[in-house]
């Protein structure tokens, strides 16, 4: 337990060791609110809700979460500190988990910084705050899933740019999974079950159900099990590299 806390603290602090954290938070808040007001025309809709904010989250997180997660393992490998870290008397899964938790907490912080929007809609009208809270939690979990994928891919390389690109591509597949563009490519040859499975992997599908106000357990289970699987895979990758 102590090792988890120590690694979490170190990793979380590492984000703030450079101005990168501030830049990232500014970009995230700036683009999120910019999209809400200028692209989705928040005011013209005359609706006191945050759906024009949350619509953009899957796309924004798709690009920004790999930027947060790309360093998790690639940087350790480049610096050689992975050799230090992995020869400490701690089980690898604990290291994987606490590194991810640090990135997850950082993503949570970025979302917290967008909360003035929430205050604004409450000031302008009376939104369904339950739905907004659920949507925030959903966005955070989706960010966690993007981060787990990024962490996993980061363990494959010492090049952070490669890790970033790989994580964006992998995330993009999950985001697009529910779209007809992907499904119509699969439908002609694959059995219905496969099509259903692919469609059920859609980040946007699960996230939309949450923002529509149906906070289903299935969306929760989906994101949490995806995170669990990606982190498990992360441990396996580290183990395989040891034997390579």
């Amino acid at each position, binding site marked *: 337990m102590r090792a988890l806390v120590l690694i979490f603290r170190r990793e979380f602090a590492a984000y703030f060791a450079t101005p990168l954290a501030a830049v990232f938070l500014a970009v995230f808040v700036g683009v999120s609110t910019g999209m809400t007001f200028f692209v989705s025309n928040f005011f013209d809709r005359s609706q006191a809700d945050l759906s024009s904010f949350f619509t953009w989250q899957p796309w924004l997180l798709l690009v920004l979460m790999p930027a947060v997660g790309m360093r998790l393992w690639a940087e350790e490998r480049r610096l*050689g500190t992975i050799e230090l870290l992995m020869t400490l008397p701690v089980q690898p899964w604990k290291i994987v988990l606490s590194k991810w938790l640090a990135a997850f907490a950082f993503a949570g912080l970025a979302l917290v910084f967008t909360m003035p929007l929430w205050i604004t809609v409450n000031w302008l009208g009376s939104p369904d705050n339950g739905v907004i809270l659920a949507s925030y939690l959903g966005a955070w979990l989706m960010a966690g899933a993007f981060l787990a994928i990024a962490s996993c891919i980061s363990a494959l390389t010492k090049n952070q740019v490669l890790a970033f690109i790989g994580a964006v591509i992998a995330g993009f597949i999950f985001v697009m999974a529910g779209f007809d563009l992907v499904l119509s490519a699969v439908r002609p040859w694959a059995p219905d079950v496969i099509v259903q499975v692919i469609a059920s992997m859609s980040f946007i599908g699960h996230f939309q159900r949450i923002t529509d106000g149906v906070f289903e357990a299935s969306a929760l289970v989906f994101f949490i099990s995806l995170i669990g699987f990606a982190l498990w895979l992360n441990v396996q990758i580290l183990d395989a590299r040891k034997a390579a």
Partner: protein
Amino acid sequence: MAVGQALVETRALIKSFGPVRAVDGISFTVGRGEVVGFLGPNGAGKSTTMKMIAGFLEPTSGSAYVAGFDSQRDPIAARNHLGYLPEGAPAYPDMTVADFLAFVAGMRGLSPAQGQRRLAELVESIDLADVWNRRIEALSKGYKRRVGIAQALVHDPDVLVLDEPTDGLDPNQKHEMRALIRTLAPTKAIIVSTHILEEVEAICTRAIVIARGKMLADGTPADLLAHAPHRDETMQQLVKTTPLEDAFRHITLDQAGV
């Protein structure tokens, strides 16, 4: 302990990277009080062997034991007895020396109070007071190396595996590092890799010569000297060499079949 007095033991250690055999059947034991020098040309398999002892790499076959615990099958127990300085003395550049060593102490299971006490000792013996609150990225190579040594000593381990601890140090720093290793020697089993021959004479009780993944010689520095070819004193040497250098060249070039 599983293997008598040996604190480090390797049995027929082999590591292949694809078609290349980086380490090819290395077996030896190191007991308490010994300082073993791993000697060999660059790319001989010294670092790879050390990585397998530390459990960072998994051997293709064979096994490595630290204090009787298998580095692969019983990694946590093995690592508790091991202090390891990886090649290049890596450390987190964004941390201060104090934070970094406190982090390692915590990860090594020392309580905050124990950690503070232990770090206070290490500041003294490794002379880190001047840079204590400085970020590691701002340190000179010499200080960075010392931080690496301090990190390996935090939990006062029985076994020290130090990959090129004096690489990149100036002559004074080299001297200090060797003095430190000698003071640690009586209570520990120490393995030091180097390609600097004078180092073997200066600190090692035993030298193991490795080239192309194979062990070519294992003995005291004096034993090694016996390998030196008979010198023709009348011959004009273009490059002055020491007897130890002659022995090294003889072993690594001749026996490897060059």
